């Protein structure tokens, strides 16, 4: 019997096609209140006044929360990894992006909740906003953050992620050609068909049951418990079935605030973001600014690579320091490059905070490195498949941070693509394997690249 490897239908396939799969929005609890958020209309402003009394006095309104109601106002998903939190659950004295939540209302209906949001009195003092990561380092740039305009908490108190390997000066000195380019992939919406949504129910024993669309039940459990300052067993997350998630549903965007409203109103609360909120206020894939320079020999060896990355994190750090680190670990793409100089910054701007999205940290690298290599091939008059195969990671080659690769397949995948498109490779490329380099494919500059695969 073979189960692994078999084309078995989805475990929940019949449930999906009969409409029986239960998503969060399908959970119906009697007595549920609707939540709506007051969000910042400004990209950057001080909050001068915040008065919720009129909203609270409206008929049908059962609770309003602001930053004052949050036991631990700032907590981040990466706090557990020692990355300090910088984002208040609800804005306190400053808003740093349009759409940032300031207050949340629970009322008997969605319409009433929206009316109550309009009745909250809030005053702003607009401040200059920063949008271009390339201007963030200038002395006259608007200041986004108490930390400055870029994240300062990498290991060793460094304000950037660095990779250094080999002798970069020598690589560029010995190069026949140096190619430079700038690569800028865009911010993208996750846009799952199910918007951010949660339903929180107060239980008789004092626990809170949180129906959640989270991609990460235990991550979200930890985040909610930390903000609420309660032990994990005070909460029960019900979920595991998500109507599409591409990273954005790791954010725990709704659950904590809905819990606070439940504690205030002692009634079940549902918070379902509108599609417009999902598009305009939910976190996005980050836009990146990457500058690459490669030191090339005329026959297509990559001797060295210098790279500067500005990761446009938006207004808060969220997962961006993690994403930039992952980016740096993979910034050579699928190739062995012996001499490296990488500097990357997590830069804050007054746009919606960005978060993890499919391919996090590496989608950007793939675009930059691969587009660049296509350019290099064109510039040197070389075949785009051969130049990739020649420089490809081999068994035993080392990564930017010194870890040996154990099971690379770039050569196999490129051979398969060459076959598929009818691209005739020279004989030595047709027979090339992933085995450690030798002979012509181990030029002097790569000799020191070969590491030990033992223990990995």
């Amino acid at each position, binding site marked *: 019997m073979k189960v*692994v490897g078999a084309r078995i239908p989805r475990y929940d396939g019949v449930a999906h096609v009969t409409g029986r799969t239960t998503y969060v929005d399908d959970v119906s609890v009697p007595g549920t209140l609707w939540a709506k958020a007051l969000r910042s209309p400004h990209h950057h402003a001080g909050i001068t006044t915040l008065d919720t009394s009129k909203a609270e006095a409206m008929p049908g309104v059962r609770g309003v929360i602001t930053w004052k109601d949050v036991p631990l106002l700032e907590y981040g998903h990466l706090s557990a990894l020692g990355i300090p939190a910088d984002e208040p659950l609800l804005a306190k004295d400053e808003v740093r992006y349009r759409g940032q939540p300031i207050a949340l209302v629970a009322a008997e209906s969605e319409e009433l909740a929206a009316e109550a949001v309009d009745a909250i009195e809030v005053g702003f003092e607009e401040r200059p906003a920063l949008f271009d990561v390339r201007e963030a380092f200038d002395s006259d740039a608007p200041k986004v953050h108490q930390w400055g305009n870029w994240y300062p908490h990498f290991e060793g108190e460094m304000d950037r992620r660095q990779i250094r390997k080999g002798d970069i000066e020598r690589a*560029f000195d010995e190069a026949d050609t140096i190619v430079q380019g700038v690569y800028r992939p865009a911010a993208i919406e996750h846009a799952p068909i199910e918007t951010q949504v949660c339903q929180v129910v107060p239980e008789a024993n004092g626990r809170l049951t949180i129906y959640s669309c989270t991609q990460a039940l235990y991550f979200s459990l930890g985040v909610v418990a930390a903000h609420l300052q309660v032990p994990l067993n005070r909460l029960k997350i019900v979920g595991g079935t998500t109507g599409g998630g591409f990273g954005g549903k790791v954010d725990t965007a709704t659950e904590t605030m809905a819990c606070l409203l439940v504690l205030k109103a002692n009634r079940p609360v549902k918070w379902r973001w509108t599609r417009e909120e999902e598009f305009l206020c939910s976190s996005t894939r980050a836009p990146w600014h990457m500058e690459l320079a490669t030191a090339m020999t005329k026959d297509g060896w990559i001797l060295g690579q210098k790279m500067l990355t500005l990761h446009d994190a938006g207004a808060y750090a969220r997962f961006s320091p993690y994403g930039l680190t992952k980016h740096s670990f993979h910034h050579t793409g699928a190739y062995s490059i012996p001499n490296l100089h990488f500097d990357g910054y997590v830069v804050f701007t007054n*746009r919606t905070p960005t978060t993890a999205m499919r391919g996090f940290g590496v989608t950007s690298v793939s675009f930059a490195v691969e587009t660049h290599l296509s350019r290099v091939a064109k510039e040197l008059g070389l075949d785009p498949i051969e130049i990739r195969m020649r420089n490809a990671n081999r068994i035993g080659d080392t990564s930017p941070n*010194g870890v040996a690769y154990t099971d690379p397949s770039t050569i196999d995948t490129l051979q398969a*693509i060459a076959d598929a498109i009818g691209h005739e490779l020279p004989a030595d490329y047709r027979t090339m394997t992933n085995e450690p380099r030798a002979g012509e494919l181990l030029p002097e500059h790569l000799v020191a690249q070969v590491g030990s695969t033992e223990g990995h």
Partner: protein
Amino acid sequence: MAKHTGRGIAAIEYPTGMNQNGDPSQCWIKVKPDGRIDVFAGTADIGNGSKTIQSQIVAETIGVPYDWITYDNSNTDSSPVCTGTFASRATFVAGKAAEKAALQVKQKILEIAGKELEIDPTDLEIVDGEVVAKGAPQTKLSVGDVAAAATWGHGELITGTGAQLKPYAAIIDPETGEVDLPPHSAISYAACSAEVEVDDETGEVRVVRLQQCYDVGRAMNPTLVEGQIEGGAMMGLGLGVLENCYPYYPSVEHRGGAFGSYLAPGMEDMPQIDTIMIENPSADGPYGAKGIGEMANNPQPPAIAAAVHDAIGVWITELPITPERVLRALEAKTEPRREGKKVVFDGELSVNAVSKGGITFEVPA
């Protein structure tokens, strides 16, 4: 005024599991008195199919039919820790925890069957729901009978637990980025060819065909892998030519707030997507699997950018490659700056052109 065709190539790699690891997944399993298997894990199914894959792993590892498995990831009371469904970790990390839990269950079933059959458990195996004596297939006991014996006769609950955790790989030298341990669970690889058609009058780029090859380690369920690769390809196509939250980035204006004003790929944008799967197994993933869900949207944008250049002779390195960008690039026909052995593209986009000196990008020569 004409349509031009072009082809571009990309090759990529991508890690499985959280970068630097330290991300546990756990699983526990219990067996009902009739031998049916209840699996509890905290892995959300975001459409990726983790319910299916983990059920397959448990069925295969114990040796029972797939439809004997119930899989429950519904809540944090009954399910143990799973860091989550992201970082291409569900099949590898959470799947490994399920495999470990299933191995314990299998061992327990064999022990109790051994007592019932008075045969050393090492001489027994489980085949399609039956415990069979190796070399004497007529001596057998169904897993259901073993579970019943455990429950009613031996007073035992057949359970298994499994946890998968690769230790956190610390950066031991922040100057160089050197780490003390491998920072990934595995690495997977892919290559892609994109064929495009560019209309030099409208500027529209149409992706006609994507041919892709992925090293998936082991295709646990080839149909589900195809689903990841095809869905990822469409998302990569969106990245390449359609999607943008900020159409005039870095400006934040004109952000689309509806499907009507944000260009998510639709059926009309579909290219032909050819998938080739290679199985180069990982050393320690369940059954050799690697995670490929996330990388599935990484190779298309650069392959498309190269294909656009092949078609119309201009490099567009700001995504997405919209009709406006194509037409502007065709009009500008910007050549790189050549200084000695340096070839400098995109000078106008560089920090050196925009920053007032706060940050620079210096290249030795």
